[in-house]
């Protein structure tokens, strides 16, 4: 009959048979659910590799090695110079020497803490990334067990967020009634991530607005450019924190790298969708006022980066929730600017 090598006969087990393993979600007090310990071990795991770069591992890159070695040499030189400088202060057996020692020690501790924080930040991002990879694999293979694992892990990730308490609870309650492949993650997408998406959109809009305003008002190009850079990094960090992976500084840079790669990779498609109308609109704006045009452009850029960052950071693809679009954000950014634009011209 069936293709199984040995046909499995119907059998009865007593409910207290030790061979029996009940489904985990059936327990009533499953609130401190199986996702939590996994998440805890993930964050405590010190040997986390920064596996963020899912954009393909390439082989040896000679250019990188050249730059790295040169930078290393320069750093060594600077270190030697600095050591000579400091040791001159250290050898003095008076208050200057002691103060220098204390300062150096404090600096050492600070560096250590920064490094630790970087590692923790990386591990958080890596955890997010693992959930993402697992979810992607589960969706690809339509494997329900993996899917359940990924979804519970995701719920564990957000279980301690007070603003998501209700969503997580509801999700765990519903998760027991879901049986088909692909549905559990869709549910997680809708219940857990959709509220975060709203907040993410708000963050992106606010950043884009700030960038647009500062660019339009700043007296020097240099200030504007710096501000755009800083604001974008801040936005990335905010988004990553929102989705559960608060990164350190280097983590943010890494993230920025990925986001740029993402924009480059998907740019062609998005260009027709979003940028065309945007350029047309901004050209008119630029004719009204160069400053305003630049502001709008920078704001649009920030919005683009923000949306791309959401794509990169979000632990699930958009299954049931709607993806925020640059156009929507832009509309909100530009509306007040047009209000401003009308005043000087009319």
């Amino acid at each position, binding site marked *: 009959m069936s293709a199984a090598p040995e046909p*499995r006969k119907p059998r009865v*087990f*007593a409910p207290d*048979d030790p061979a029996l393993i*009940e489904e985990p979600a059936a327990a009533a007090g499953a609130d401190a659910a199986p996702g939590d310990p996994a998440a805890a071990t993930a964050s405590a795991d010190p040997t986390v590799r920064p596996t963020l770069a899912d954009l393909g591992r390439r082989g040896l890159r000679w250019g990188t090695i050249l730059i790295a070695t040169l930078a290393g040499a320069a750093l060594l030189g600077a270190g030697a110079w600095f050591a000579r400088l400091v040791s001159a202060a250290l050898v003095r057996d008076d208050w200057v020497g002691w103060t220098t020692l204390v300062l150096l020690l404090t600096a050492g501790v600070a560096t250590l803490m920064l490094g630790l924080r970087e590692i923790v930040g990386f591990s958080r991002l890596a955890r997010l990334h693992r959930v993402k990879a697992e979810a992607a694999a589960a969706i690809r293979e339509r494997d329900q067990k993996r899917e359940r694992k990924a979804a519970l892990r995701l719920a564990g990730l957000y279980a301690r967020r007070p603003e998501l308490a209700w969503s997580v609870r509801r999700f765990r309650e519903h998760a027991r*009634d*879901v049986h088909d492949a692909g549905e559990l993650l869709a549910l997680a997408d809708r219940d857990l991530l959709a509220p975060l998406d709203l907040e993410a959109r708000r963050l992106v809009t606010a950043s884009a607005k700030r960038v647009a305003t500062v660019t339009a008002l700043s007296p020097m190009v240099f200030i504007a450019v710096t501000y755009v850079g800083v604001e974008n990094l801040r936005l990335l960090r905010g988004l990553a924190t929102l989705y559960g992976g608060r990164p350190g500084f280097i983590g943010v840079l890494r993230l920025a790298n990925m986001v740029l790669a993402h924009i480059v990779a998907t740019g062609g498609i998005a260009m027709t969708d979003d940028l065309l109308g945007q350029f047309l609109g901004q050209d008119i704006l630029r004719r009204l006022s160069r400053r305003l045009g630049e502001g709008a452009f920078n704001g649009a850029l920030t919005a683009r980066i923000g949306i791309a960052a959401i794509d990169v950071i979000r632990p699930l693809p958009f299954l049931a929730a709607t993806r925020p679009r640059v156009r929507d954000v832009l509309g909100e950014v530009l509306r007040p600017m047009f209000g401003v634009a009308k005043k000087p011209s009319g």
Partner: protein
Amino acid sequence: MRLSDLTETTAGALKSASAALSDLMTPTVRLGVTGLARSGKTVFITTLVRSLLAGGRLPFFSAMAEGRITRAYLEPQPDDAVPRFAYEEHLGLLAKAPPEWPESTRRLSQLRLTIEYTSKLALRRTLGPGRLHVDIVDYPGEWLIDLPLLEMSFPDWSRQAVEDARAPHRRQAAAPWLELISTLDPEALEDEQIALTGAEAFTRYLLAARALDPALSAPGPGRFLLPGDLAGSPLLTFFPLPPAGGSASPRGSLGAMLARRFESYKAHVVKPFFRDHFARLDRQIVLMDALSAVNAGASALADLQRTMEAVLECFRPGANTWLSSILARRIDRLLFAATKADHLHHSSHDRLEAILRLLAEQAIARASFAGAEVKVMALAALRATREAEARSGRQTLPCIVGVPLPGERLGRKVFDGVAEAAVFPGDLPEDAASLLVPPAGAIAPGEDSADASVHFPRFRPPRVSLEAPSGEAPALPHIRLDRAIEFLLGDRLA
């Protein structure tokens, strides 16, 4: 075409016209819950209503998940001639200790549920009333098997009934009746006494055939099994009697009298039932208890397939049946549900769906061809079991845990209806068609459960608590009920 056909068509058209008019005020969805006896119609309706009223756990019913349903309530019974569906009573049975499944339905009943919602579409929000009536009818599944009679003539029906009676698993029950009709001559003069005794023997045979295994799809006519208010009426004093020569019997003969009564049974019992409750459906869910049929073996599955095929034939939205003209409304969404999906582990649900797809193959093809949306799913309107895995040697057996009904058996174990048990019911075959092939050395029904390769015992329902201490109604456990509701009603609540 006879005059009554004409008037009926007109009346039907008028009826749908008036329905369309009242739809302008408040849209109404007529939900047809179709299923043979014991396929779970009553439980489905009860939990459907309960979940909508009390806000059940329905994550994939989008209108509810998005929080757009503001209120759902039961309307006072709209039709004074039809009893109301005893929703509270059925729910009460499930809340008893120990809980019980609602009894099999003995009469027709009806319910109107009103859902107040906020539409997602701006146009509908401004124009529409934001209200939807859902009309649901519950009826004895036995009556459903009458629908195919509408297309049959008396000689055809007689021949088929005799053939059915000679099937191996019914032969024993049918023996007295078969013996009786072999002595009768359809050309003989009509005689009321012969009609009475014949009908009685026929009824006894039908009841006996059903008693062997009530889950089996029984041969009809349905009112012989469940007469309702027709008990003893001349409408029921007939029985199949194949005409001698193949042509109709002469006027005044026994055969002619039986044929006449058969025709009036169709005209006075079956047609009104169909006309009032099935002809104007918008959405239909077809519940099939495939698992019981699998339990009972290949012949039962084939029976179920044939019966459902014939029943669903009546719902054909094509031309050239007398009802298609009444069917101004077409059933635009058709859901085939294999009920009692909680009686096996969810990893086997796809196989159960495959079986259902095979059983309803032609109906699915026909409906899709006619342009209706068709979906097949394994469903448990009220989930009676939990899932577990058991290790046995090197294998891991996917089990279900619940309280089997008293008298259910698996292998040598007979359940008492009190103790919980974890059951591995066996693997459904990967190829559903292999179930339709009778195994070598046919076994009589009712005796094969000891060493069958699959057997699904029935379980006691979960205890439904009507109100939690906190005052809110706890949600009922189910399997894919939300998907089913979404498919049946979701677009009307968009």
